């Protein structure tokens, strides 16, 4: 397939680098300011090198990527809240051209799910967004495979940064600020960690799960979620949990009509007490008990793997 990739961060760059391995051709790559376009396939190495040295991927206007020749638009720009722009507009343009869209950007799926589905219904193109939840872990496709009606609840650890901070604090008895600074040094936490530590990122993922579970009967946005983060949780709280055979994890929960993200006490040897940046999701099924799926929930190649899985599913249903 021919891919146009919008967003040249860790995820977009990985998609471009790995596309050939999956048998696809990248015809366009755009960052926030420019685009590189070639209907025969862009020179991936040259374009990424240009991005490293010049700060932009190419000489053309960003819109040239959206107008380029492609079968699938990969939307990997940073997540934005509210109107979810510019991501939503990119998706709209591609669907109006009857092209497929695969998203890694959570904004349009969490904040404007109904509009997104309406656009897809009116288009010959499809939308897929496995990469928006849990990186490489096949969560949404598993829900779809099991059928949303047979999943009664979903809960899990969906933010690697928060989980890294909590597991380091518990293991080393260190304070929140200390571990946050360490996480920033390691590149696990961003310079502005607000999105991760205040629970917004995990909440967006839960909202997307809720939308998939609701199958259009009800639409959720971030406003429907009850969100409490791990910001400034004292080391003493983790110590007390540990002394009782427990630990604290930032847990996202989706069950009948409620979406909630909050720090919770879990037994220290429970499946939910994953350590480091690892993510885990538990699905409660009607006929098959509990299903645990865990793995790497973030990162360029990991998220790109989910994008290629989505591309592989296009047109197969």
């Amino acid at each position, binding site marked *: 397939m021919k891919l146009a990739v919008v967003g040249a961060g860790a995820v977009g760059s990985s998609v471009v680098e790995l596309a050939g391995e999956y048998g696809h051709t990248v015809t366009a790559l755009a960052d926030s300011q420019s685009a590189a376009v070639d209907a025969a396939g862009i020179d991936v190495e040259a374009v990424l090198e240009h991005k490293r040295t010049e700060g932009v991927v190419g000489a053309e206007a960003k819109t040239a990527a959206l107008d380029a020749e492609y079968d699938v638009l990969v939307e990997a720009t940073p997540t934005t809240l509210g109107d979810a722009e510019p991501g939503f507009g990119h998706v709209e343009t591609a669907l109006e051209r009857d092209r497929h869209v695969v998203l890694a950007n959570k904004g349009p799926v969490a904040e404007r799910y109904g509009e997104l589905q309406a656009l897809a219904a009116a288009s010959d193109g499809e939308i897929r967004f496995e990469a928006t939840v849990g990186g490489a872990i096949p969560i949404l496709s598993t829900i779809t495979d099991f059928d949303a009606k047979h999943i009664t609840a979903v809960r899990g650890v969906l933010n690697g940064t928060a989980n890294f901070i909590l597991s380091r604090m518990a293991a080393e008895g260190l304070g929140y600020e200390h571990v946050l600074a360490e996480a920033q040094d390691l590149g696990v936490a961003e310079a502005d960690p607000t999105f991760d530590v205040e629970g917004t990122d995990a909440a967006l993922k839960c909202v997307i799960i809720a939308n998939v579970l609701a199958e259009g009967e009800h639409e959720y946005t971030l406003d429907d979620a009850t969100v409490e983060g791990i910001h400034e*949780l004292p080391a003493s709280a983790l110590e007390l949990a540990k002394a009782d055979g427990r630990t604290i994890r930032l847990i996202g929960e989706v069950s009948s009509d409620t979406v909630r993200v909050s720090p919770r006490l879990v037994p220290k040897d429970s499946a939910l007490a994953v350590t480091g940046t690892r993510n885990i999701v538990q699905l409660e099924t009607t006929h098959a008990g509990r299903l645990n799926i865990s793995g790497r929930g973030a990162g360029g190649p990991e998220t790109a793997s989910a994008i290629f899985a989505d591309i592989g599913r296009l047109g197969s249903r």
Partner: protein
Amino acid sequence: MSDSTDKVRAYTVRLELVDRPGELLRALEPIADQGGNLLSIFHERGNLTPRGHIPVEVDLEANTEQFDEIVAALQEEGINVIQAGAERYSEEIVIILVGHLVDTDLSHTLSLLQEETGTSVRDFSLSAPEGESGESSARLRLATQSGQVEDVLGTVREIAGEKDLRVVEPLAGGEA
């Protein structure tokens, strides 16, 4: 697709059985069905509980997930589970309160919690590394009646909100 790193541990389950043929076998089946390893059974025939049932103590090995499933299966079978693990099942809630606990009158908070939620504080631990004026944490083990956990937690949230304290709740319905 499972990535369970759960360790297998020994558990003691106390059951109350109706004095009827086949009851003991019925109580043991869920343990084997869920993959638990039966270690010993202490069947006190001749000894009756206040409700006129026969107390049975079962030692078994399982991981936490299997153990949850075993207890759920026993309850589904209508078998009375008096105690599971080290705790009275579905009658205790462990929470952690975080904030200016001492400044906001800790003993008042505790008595308010007991009165408003109808629970009793079974166990209490305070950690105040920054001294009395700083932020501290407290772990509380609240004893409550089964089926009341959500109501109790709702009331705890209200009281904590009034005193500007954070509550770290257990994961209801999950593995906590």
